[in-house]
Protein backbone atom coordinates (compact mmCIF):
# COMPACT_ATOMS: atom_id res chain seq x y z
CA UNK A 1 0.00 0.00 0.00
CA UNK A 2 1.46 3.26 -1.16
CA UNK A 3 -0.62 5.83 0.67
CA UNK A 4 0.04 8.71 -1.69
CA UNK A 5 0.06 7.06 -5.10
CA UNK A 6 -2.37 8.87 -7.37
CA UNK A 7 -1.60 7.64 -10.84
CA UNK A 8 -0.07 4.71 -12.64
CA UNK A 9 1.64 5.23 -16.00
CA UNK A 10 1.99 2.58 -18.66
CA UNK A 11 4.76 3.54 -21.11
CA UNK A 12 4.32 1.82 -24.48
CA UNK A 13 8.00 1.54 -25.36
CA UNK A 14 11.40 1.94 -23.67
CA UNK A 15 11.83 5.51 -24.94
CA UNK A 16 8.56 6.58 -23.37
CA UNK A 17 9.49 4.73 -20.19
CA UNK A 18 12.73 6.65 -19.97
CA UNK A 19 10.89 9.90 -20.57
CA UNK A 20 8.40 9.35 -17.72
CA UNK A 21 11.07 8.02 -15.40
CA UNK A 22 13.09 11.19 -15.92
CA UNK A 23 10.01 13.35 -15.59
CA UNK A 24 8.83 11.88 -12.28
CA UNK A 25 12.22 11.06 -10.85
CA UNK A 26 12.22 9.94 -7.24
CA UNK A 27 8.48 10.45 -6.82
CA UNK A 28 7.84 7.48 -9.11
CA UNK A 29 7.91 3.85 -8.10
CA UNK A 30 9.10 1.88 -11.11
CA UNK A 31 7.69 -1.62 -11.28
CA UNK A 32 8.16 -4.66 -13.44
CA UNK A 33 6.71 -7.86 -11.92
CA UNK A 34 6.24 -5.85 -8.77
CA UNK A 35 7.06 -8.64 -6.34
CA UNK A 36 9.46 -6.49 -4.34
CA UNK A 37 8.01 -3.05 -5.01
CA UNK A 38 4.51 -4.07 -3.88
CA UNK A 39 5.76 -4.31 -0.30
CA UNK A 40 6.68 -0.63 -0.26
CA UNK A 41 4.77 1.68 2.06
CA UNK A 42 6.81 4.71 1.09
CA UNK A 43 4.67 7.86 1.30
CA UNK A 44 7.12 9.63 -1.02
CA UNK A 45 5.78 7.96 -4.15
CA UNK A 46 2.91 9.69 -5.92
CA UNK A 47 3.27 7.91 -9.26
CA UNK A 48 3.66 4.33 -10.35
CA UNK A 49 5.34 3.38 -13.59
CA UNK A 50 4.43 -0.07 -14.86
CA UNK A 51 7.17 -1.20 -17.24
CA UNK A 52 5.44 -4.37 -18.33
CA UNK A 53 3.39 -2.76 -21.13
CA UNK A 54 6.33 -1.63 -23.29
CA UNK A 55 6.90 -4.86 -25.19
CA UNK A 56 10.40 -6.24 -24.66
CA UNK A 57 8.77 -9.55 -23.82
CA UNK A 58 10.22 -11.80 -26.49
CA UNK A 59 12.92 -14.41 -26.68
CA UNK A 60 14.44 -14.41 -30.15
CA UNK A 61 17.41 -15.87 -31.95
CA UNK A 62 18.76 -13.11 -34.19
CA UNK A 63 21.99 -13.33 -36.14
CA UNK A 64 23.78 -15.78 -33.91
CA UNK A 65 22.63 -14.39 -30.61
CA UNK A 66 19.73 -14.84 -28.29
CA UNK A 67 17.87 -11.67 -27.43
CA UNK A 68 15.78 -11.76 -24.28
CA UNK A 69 13.55 -8.80 -23.55
CA UNK A 70 13.48 -7.39 -20.03
CA UNK A 71 9.79 -8.23 -19.68
CA UNK A 72 10.16 -11.95 -20.26
CA UNK A 73 8.72 -13.67 -17.18
CA UNK A 74 11.00 -16.12 -15.42
CA UNK A 75 8.61 -19.02 -15.87
CA UNK A 76 8.66 -18.52 -19.64
CA UNK A 77 12.40 -18.24 -19.63
CA UNK A 78 12.66 -21.43 -17.59
CA UNK A 79 10.66 -23.53 -20.04
CA UNK A 80 11.84 -21.99 -23.33
CA UNK A 81 13.21 -24.81 -25.51
CA UNK A 82 15.99 -22.67 -27.01
CA UNK A 83 17.12 -21.31 -23.67
CA UNK A 84 17.05 -24.78 -22.18
CA UNK A 85 19.67 -25.79 -24.72
CA UNK A 86 21.80 -22.67 -24.52
CA UNK A 87 24.92 -23.47 -22.47
CA UNK A 88 23.13 -26.66 -21.39
CA UNK A 89 20.31 -24.62 -19.91
CA UNK A 90 22.26 -22.52 -17.43
CA UNK A 91 19.85 -19.60 -17.63
CA UNK A 92 16.65 -21.64 -17.77
CA UNK A 93 17.78 -23.64 -14.74
CA UNK A 94 18.50 -20.41 -12.90
CA UNK A 95 15.09 -19.03 -13.83
CA UNK A 96 13.37 -22.16 -12.60
CA UNK A 97 15.33 -21.98 -9.35
CA UNK A 98 13.71 -18.68 -8.43
CA UNK A 99 11.15 -18.78 -5.63
CA UNK A 100 7.86 -20.45 -6.33
CA UNK A 101 5.64 -20.68 -9.38
CA UNK A 102 3.52 -17.58 -8.75
CA UNK A 103 6.71 -15.58 -8.30
CA UNK A 104 8.21 -16.99 -11.48
CA UNK A 105 4.97 -16.04 -13.21
CA UNK A 106 5.33 -12.48 -12.04
CA UNK A 107 9.04 -11.70 -11.90
CA UNK A 108 10.60 -10.45 -15.12
CA UNK A 109 14.17 -11.02 -16.17
CA UNK A 110 14.76 -7.27 -16.07
CA UNK A 111 13.38 -7.00 -12.57
CA UNK A 112 15.39 -9.96 -11.33
CA UNK A 113 18.57 -8.42 -12.72
CA UNK A 114 18.13 -4.73 -11.95
CA UNK A 115 16.47 -5.30 -8.57
CA UNK A 116 19.36 -7.61 -7.73
CA UNK A 117 19.36 -9.17 -4.29
CA UNK A 118 22.28 -11.14 -2.96
CA UNK A 119 20.35 -14.36 -3.59
CA UNK A 120 19.01 -13.51 -7.07
CA UNK A 121 19.58 -16.50 -9.31
CA UNK A 122 19.45 -15.37 -12.95
CA UNK A 123 22.23 -12.76 -12.65
CA UNK A 124 24.64 -15.54 -11.68
CA UNK A 125 23.81 -17.39 -14.88
CA UNK A 126 24.05 -14.25 -16.99
CA UNK A 127 27.48 -13.46 -15.58
CA UNK A 128 28.76 -16.93 -16.38
CA UNK A 129 27.27 -16.77 -19.87
CA UNK A 130 28.98 -13.47 -20.58
CA UNK A 131 25.71 -11.83 -21.50
CA UNK A 132 25.50 -8.31 -22.86
CA UNK A 133 23.14 -5.85 -21.18
CA UNK A 134 21.35 -3.34 -23.39
CA UNK A 135 20.46 -0.14 -21.61
CA UNK A 136 18.22 2.67 -22.79
CA UNK A 137 18.54 6.04 -21.10
CA UNK A 138 18.04 9.74 -21.48
CA UNK A 139 21.35 9.97 -23.32
CA UNK A 140 20.58 7.17 -25.74
CA UNK A 141 21.44 3.49 -25.67
CA UNK A 142 24.53 1.69 -24.52
CA UNK A 143 25.57 -1.89 -23.95
CA UNK A 144 27.59 -3.27 -21.10
CA UNK A 145 29.30 -6.59 -20.81
CA UNK A 146 28.43 -8.76 -17.86
CA UNK A 147 31.66 -8.11 -16.00
CA UNK A 148 31.13 -4.38 -16.18
CA UNK A 149 27.43 -4.61 -15.47
CA UNK A 150 27.92 -6.62 -12.28
CA UNK A 151 31.02 -4.74 -11.13
CA UNK A 152 28.71 -3.06 -8.65
CA UNK A 153 24.99 -3.26 -8.00
CA UNK A 154 23.17 -2.61 -11.31
CA UNK A 155 21.35 0.32 -9.73
CA UNK A 156 24.73 1.94 -9.16
CA UNK A 157 25.96 1.05 -12.61
CA UNK A 158 22.85 2.36 -14.31
CA UNK A 159 22.18 6.07 -14.49
CA UNK A 160 19.05 7.85 -13.35
CA UNK A 161 16.32 7.31 -15.91
CA UNK A 162 18.12 4.42 -17.52
CA UNK A 163 16.44 1.06 -17.97
CA UNK A 164 17.50 -2.40 -18.97
CA UNK A 165 15.73 -3.18 -22.23
CA UNK A 166 17.08 -6.69 -22.60
CA UNK A 167 20.05 -8.99 -22.59
CA UNK A 168 21.90 -10.68 -25.40
CA UNK A 169 23.76 -13.96 -25.23
CA UNK A 170 25.92 -15.38 -28.00
CA UNK A 171 24.19 -18.49 -29.26
CA UNK A 172 25.63 -21.75 -28.26
CA UNK A 173 29.12 -22.69 -29.23
CA UNK A 174 29.11 -26.36 -30.31
CA UNK A 175 31.89 -26.95 -27.79
CA UNK A 176 30.30 -24.93 -25.02
CA UNK A 177 28.54 -26.46 -22.07
CA UNK A 178 27.35 -25.25 -18.76
CA UNK A 179 25.61 -25.97 -15.50
CA UNK A 180 23.80 -24.03 -12.83
CA UNK A 181 23.39 -25.25 -9.25
CA UNK A 182 21.40 -23.58 -6.53
CA UNK A 183 22.01 -24.73 -3.00
CA UNK A 184 19.29 -23.84 -0.50
CA UNK A 185 17.86 -25.35 2.66
CA UNK A 186 14.50 -26.18 1.11
CA UNK A 187 13.27 -26.28 -2.46
CA UNK A 188 11.54 -22.94 -2.19
CA UNK A 189 14.15 -20.98 -0.29
CA UNK A 190 16.62 -18.28 -1.18
CA UNK A 191 20.04 -19.50 -2.19
CA UNK A 192 22.81 -20.12 0.31
CA UNK A 193 25.09 -20.40 -2.69
CA UNK A 194 24.50 -20.33 -6.44
CA UNK A 195 27.14 -21.36 -8.93
CA UNK A 196 26.96 -21.14 -12.72
CA UNK A 197 29.71 -22.55 -14.91
CA UNK A 198 30.18 -22.11 -18.66
CA UNK A 199 33.00 -24.11 -20.21
CA UNK A 200 34.39 -24.70 -23.69
CA UNK A 201 36.41 -27.75 -24.60
CA UNK A 202 38.78 -27.80 -27.55
CA UNK A 203 39.48 -30.65 -29.99
CA UNK A 204 42.03 -32.16 -27.60
CA UNK A 205 39.50 -32.20 -24.81
CA UNK A 206 41.14 -29.33 -22.97
CA UNK A 207 39.27 -26.49 -21.40
CA UNK A 208 39.66 -23.47 -23.64
CA UNK A 209 37.23 -21.15 -21.93
CA UNK A 210 35.85 -21.07 -18.42
CA UNK A 211 33.55 -18.65 -16.67
CA UNK A 212 32.55 -19.56 -13.14
CA UNK A 213 30.09 -17.23 -11.42
CA UNK A 214 29.12 -17.40 -7.78
CA UNK A 215 26.02 -15.90 -6.21
CA UNK A 216 24.32 -15.74 -2.85
CA UNK A 217 27.47 -14.84 -0.99
CA UNK A 218 28.00 -11.11 -1.63
CA UNK A 219 25.99 -8.08 -2.69
CA UNK A 220 26.61 -8.91 -6.37
CA UNK A 221 27.50 -12.13 -8.16
CA UNK A 222 31.21 -12.54 -8.83
CA UNK A 223 33.55 -14.55 -11.00
CA UNK A 224 35.87 -17.09 -9.46
CA UNK A 225 38.73 -16.03 -11.70
CA UNK A 226 41.47 -17.99 -9.97
CA UNK A 227 39.36 -21.10 -10.25
CA UNK A 228 38.79 -20.40 -13.93
CA UNK A 229 42.56 -20.20 -14.42
CA UNK A 230 43.01 -23.63 -12.89
CA UNK A 231 40.60 -25.06 -15.41
CA UNK A 232 41.98 -23.39 -18.51
CA UNK A 233 44.14 -25.73 -20.56
CA UNK A 234 43.33 -28.69 -18.35
CA UNK A 235 41.48 -31.87 -19.20
CA UNK A 236 38.92 -31.29 -16.46
CA UNK A 237 39.89 -34.29 -14.44
CA UNK A 238 38.29 -34.77 -11.07
CA UNK A 239 41.44 -33.53 -9.45
CA UNK A 240 41.57 -30.31 -11.45
CA UNK A 241 37.95 -29.64 -10.73
CA UNK A 242 38.47 -30.21 -7.01
CA UNK A 243 41.44 -27.90 -6.99
CA UNK A 244 39.50 -25.22 -8.89
CA UNK A 245 36.59 -25.51 -6.47
CA UNK A 246 38.93 -25.21 -3.49
CA UNK A 247 40.38 -22.09 -5.06
CA UNK A 248 36.94 -20.56 -5.60
CA UNK A 249 36.27 -20.84 -1.89
CA UNK A 250 39.19 -18.58 -1.14
CA UNK A 251 38.36 -15.83 -3.60
CA UNK A 252 37.29 -12.97 -1.45
CA UNK A 253 34.82 -12.02 1.19
CA UNK A 254 31.63 -13.89 1.97
CA UNK A 255 28.67 -12.59 3.97
CA UNK A 256 26.68 -14.23 6.73
CA UNK A 257 22.94 -13.77 7.11
CA UNK A 258 19.88 -15.32 8.72
CA UNK A 259 20.28 -18.40 6.51
CA UNK A 260 23.78 -19.36 7.46
CA UNK A 261 27.13 -18.15 8.71
CA UNK A 262 30.22 -17.24 6.74
CA UNK A 263 32.18 -20.41 7.40
CA UNK A 264 29.45 -22.71 6.21
CA UNK A 265 28.76 -20.55 3.17
CA UNK A 266 32.45 -20.54 2.24
CA UNK A 267 32.59 -24.27 2.53
CA UNK A 268 29.51 -24.57 0.31
CA UNK A 269 31.16 -22.46 -2.37
CA UNK A 270 33.74 -25.20 -2.73
CA UNK A 271 31.21 -28.04 -2.70
CA UNK A 272 28.74 -26.43 -5.07
CA UNK A 273 31.40 -25.02 -7.38
CA UNK A 274 32.90 -28.51 -7.62
CA UNK A 275 29.55 -30.06 -8.44
CA UNK A 276 28.63 -27.37 -10.92
CA UNK A 277 31.91 -27.62 -12.81
CA UNK A 278 31.65 -31.37 -12.77
CA UNK A 279 28.16 -31.26 -14.21
CA UNK A 280 29.22 -28.79 -16.87
CA UNK A 281 32.23 -30.94 -17.77
CA UNK A 282 30.03 -34.03 -17.91
CA UNK A 283 27.64 -32.39 -20.33
CA UNK A 284 30.60 -31.34 -22.47
CA UNK A 285 31.76 -34.93 -22.56
CA UNK A 286 28.28 -36.14 -23.41
CA UNK A 287 28.28 -33.87 -26.41
CA UNK A 288 31.67 -35.22 -27.39
Amino acid at each position, binding site marked *: *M*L*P*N*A*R*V*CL*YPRDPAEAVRVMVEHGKRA*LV*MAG*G*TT*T*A*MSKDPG*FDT*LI*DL*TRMGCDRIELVGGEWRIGCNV*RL*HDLGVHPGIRKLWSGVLSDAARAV*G*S*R*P*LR*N*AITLGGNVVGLFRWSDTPVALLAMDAVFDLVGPDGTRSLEADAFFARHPRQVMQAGELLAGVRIASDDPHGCGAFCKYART*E*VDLAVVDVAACLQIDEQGRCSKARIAVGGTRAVPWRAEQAEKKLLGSKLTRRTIESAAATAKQEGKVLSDVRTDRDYRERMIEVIAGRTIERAAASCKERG
Partner: protein
Amino acid sequence: MEIHVKVNDKPVTWNVSPGEKLLDVLRRDGYLSVKFGCGEGDCGACTVLVDGRAMRACLLLAGQVEGRAITTVEALGTPDAPHPLQTAFVECGAVQCGYCTPGMLLAAYALLRENPKPSEEDVREALDGNLCRCTGYKKIIEAVLLAAERMGRS
Protein backbone atom coordinates in the same frame (compact mmCIF):
# COMPACT_ATOMS: atom_id res chain seq x y z
CA MET B 1 -7.66 6.65 -10.43
CA GLU B 2 -10.01 4.44 -12.43
CA ILE B 3 -8.77 0.90 -12.95
CA HIS B 4 -10.57 -1.17 -15.55
CA VAL B 5 -10.35 -4.89 -15.18
CA LYS B 6 -12.34 -7.99 -15.84
CA VAL B 7 -13.00 -10.04 -12.76
CA ASN B 8 -14.31 -13.49 -13.56
CA ASP B 9 -15.22 -12.30 -17.08
CA LYS B 10 -17.22 -9.37 -15.75
CA PRO B 11 -15.95 -5.87 -16.60
CA VAL B 12 -15.35 -3.91 -13.43
CA THR B 13 -14.17 -0.37 -12.84
CA TRP B 14 -12.47 0.39 -9.55
CA ASN B 15 -11.98 3.90 -8.35
CA VAL B 16 -9.00 3.29 -6.11
CA SER B 17 -5.48 4.39 -5.47
CA PRO B 18 -3.22 2.55 -7.90
CA GLY B 19 -0.96 1.91 -4.91
CA GLU B 20 -3.47 -0.27 -3.07
CA LYS B 21 -2.82 -3.96 -2.98
CA LEU B 22 -4.96 -6.05 -5.29
CA LEU B 23 -5.69 -8.34 -2.34
CA ASP B 24 -7.33 -5.52 -0.41
CA VAL B 25 -9.25 -4.22 -3.42
CA LEU B 26 -10.61 -7.65 -4.30
CA ARG B 27 -11.66 -8.44 -0.75
CA ARG B 28 -13.35 -5.07 -0.35
CA ASP B 29 -15.18 -5.72 -3.59
CA GLY B 30 -16.57 -8.97 -2.20
CA TYR B 31 -14.17 -11.52 -3.65
CA LEU B 32 -13.68 -13.06 -0.23
CA SER B 33 -12.20 -16.31 -1.48
CA VAL B 34 -8.93 -14.42 -1.87
CA LYS B 35 -7.35 -14.92 1.56
CA PHE B 36 -4.81 -13.05 3.63
CA GLY B 37 -2.13 -15.36 4.97
CA CYS B 38 1.11 -13.43 5.14
CA GLY B 39 0.83 -10.31 2.98
CA GLU B 40 4.42 -10.86 1.91
CA GLY B 41 4.09 -13.17 -1.07
CA ASP B 42 5.20 -16.30 0.70
CA CYS B 43 2.09 -18.38 1.48
CA GLY B 44 -0.12 -18.32 -1.63
CA ALA B 45 -3.46 -17.95 0.19
CA CYS B 46 -4.20 -14.87 -1.93
CA THR B 47 -3.41 -16.53 -5.28
CA VAL B 48 -5.48 -15.24 -8.20
CA LEU B 49 -5.08 -15.67 -11.93
CA VAL B 50 -3.98 -12.64 -13.90
CA ASP B 51 -4.47 -13.24 -17.61
CA GLY B 52 -4.58 -16.93 -16.77
CA ARG B 53 -1.41 -17.08 -14.68
CA ALA B 54 -1.29 -17.76 -10.96
CA MET B 55 0.01 -14.74 -9.08
CA ARG B 56 -0.04 -13.30 -5.58
CA ALA B 57 -2.71 -10.68 -5.03
CA CYS B 58 -0.67 -9.36 -2.09
CA LEU B 59 2.27 -8.61 -4.39
CA LEU B 60 0.28 -6.79 -7.03
CA LEU B 61 -0.74 -3.18 -6.81
CA ALA B 62 -4.07 -2.18 -8.27
CA GLY B 63 -2.35 -0.11 -10.93
CA GLN B 64 -0.57 -3.16 -12.28
CA VAL B 65 -3.74 -5.00 -13.24
CA GLU B 66 -5.23 -2.25 -15.42
CA GLY B 67 -6.72 -3.96 -18.47
CA ARG B 68 -6.01 -7.43 -17.14
CA ALA B 69 -8.40 -10.33 -16.63
CA ILE B 70 -8.53 -11.58 -13.06
CA THR B 71 -9.91 -14.95 -12.05
CA THR B 72 -10.86 -15.96 -8.53
CA VAL B 73 -12.35 -19.19 -7.25
CA GLU B 74 -15.80 -17.62 -7.36
CA ALA B 75 -15.59 -18.24 -11.13
CA LEU B 76 -14.92 -21.96 -10.85
CA GLY B 77 -18.03 -24.08 -11.20
CA THR B 78 -21.48 -23.37 -9.83
CA PRO B 79 -23.20 -24.65 -6.71
CA ASP B 80 -24.95 -27.31 -8.78
CA ALA B 81 -22.07 -28.09 -11.07
CA PRO B 82 -18.78 -27.63 -9.30
CA HIS B 83 -15.57 -27.68 -11.30
CA PRO B 84 -13.97 -31.15 -11.52
CA LEU B 85 -11.08 -29.81 -9.47
CA GLN B 86 -13.43 -28.80 -6.69
CA THR B 87 -15.14 -32.18 -6.74
CA ALA B 88 -11.82 -33.98 -6.69
CA PHE B 89 -10.51 -31.83 -3.83
CA VAL B 90 -13.52 -32.68 -1.71
CA GLU B 91 -13.52 -36.36 -2.63
CA CYS B 92 -9.82 -36.88 -2.08
CA GLY B 93 -9.71 -35.19 1.29
CA ALA B 94 -7.61 -32.35 -0.12
CA VAL B 95 -9.64 -29.84 1.89
CA GLN B 96 -8.99 -29.74 5.59
CA CYS B 97 -9.28 -26.26 7.04
CA GLY B 98 -9.88 -24.92 3.54
CA TYR B 99 -8.00 -21.68 3.98
CA CYS B 100 -5.36 -22.49 1.36
CA THR B 101 -7.90 -24.23 -0.87
CA PRO B 102 -8.96 -21.34 -3.15
CA GLY B 103 -5.33 -20.52 -3.93
CA MET B 104 -4.48 -24.16 -4.47
CA LEU B 105 -7.46 -24.59 -6.80
CA LEU B 106 -6.47 -21.61 -8.91
CA ALA B 107 -2.87 -22.72 -9.18
CA ALA B 108 -4.11 -26.15 -10.23
CA TYR B 109 -6.64 -24.67 -12.64
CA ALA B 110 -3.94 -22.63 -14.36
CA LEU B 111 -1.76 -25.72 -14.60
CA LEU B 112 -4.47 -27.87 -16.19
CA ARG B 113 -5.21 -25.19 -18.75
CA GLU B 114 -1.62 -25.12 -19.96
CA ASN B 115 -0.94 -28.81 -19.35
CA PRO B 116 -4.01 -31.07 -19.31
CA LYS B 117 -1.97 -34.17 -18.58
CA PRO B 118 0.46 -33.14 -15.87
CA SER B 119 2.84 -35.51 -14.17
CA GLU B 120 3.09 -35.55 -10.39
CA GLU B 121 6.26 -33.47 -10.74
CA ASP B 122 4.39 -30.90 -12.82
CA VAL B 123 1.72 -30.64 -10.12
CA ARG B 124 4.30 -30.19 -7.38
CA GLU B 125 6.00 -27.47 -9.39
CA ALA B 126 2.75 -25.64 -10.12
CA LEU B 127 1.65 -25.70 -6.46
CA ASP B 128 5.01 -24.97 -4.86
CA GLY B 129 3.97 -21.47 -3.93
CA ASN B 130 0.87 -22.48 -2.00
CA LEU B 131 1.56 -23.44 1.59
CA CYS B 132 -0.72 -25.83 3.43
CA ARG B 133 -0.13 -26.87 7.02
CA CYS B 134 -3.03 -29.31 7.35
CA THR B 135 -2.77 -31.94 4.66
CA GLY B 136 0.87 -32.66 3.99
CA TYR B 137 -0.06 -31.93 0.33
CA LYS B 138 -0.38 -35.58 -0.60
CA LYS B 139 -4.14 -35.56 -1.08
CA ILE B 140 -4.00 -32.19 -2.83
CA ILE B 141 -1.63 -33.58 -5.44
CA GLU B 142 -3.79 -36.69 -5.79
CA ALA B 143 -6.86 -34.51 -6.29
CA VAL B 144 -5.26 -32.49 -9.08
CA LEU B 145 -4.16 -35.64 -10.87
CA LEU B 146 -7.63 -37.15 -10.46
CA ALA B 147 -9.30 -34.04 -11.84
CA ALA B 148 -6.90 -34.00 -14.79
CA GLU B 149 -7.71 -37.60 -15.54
CA ARG B 150 -11.46 -36.99 -15.35
CA MET B 151 -11.28 -33.84 -17.46
CA GLY B 152 -9.22 -35.72 -20.04
CA ARG B 153 -11.88 -38.37 -20.32
CA SER B 154 -14.87 -36.09 -20.70
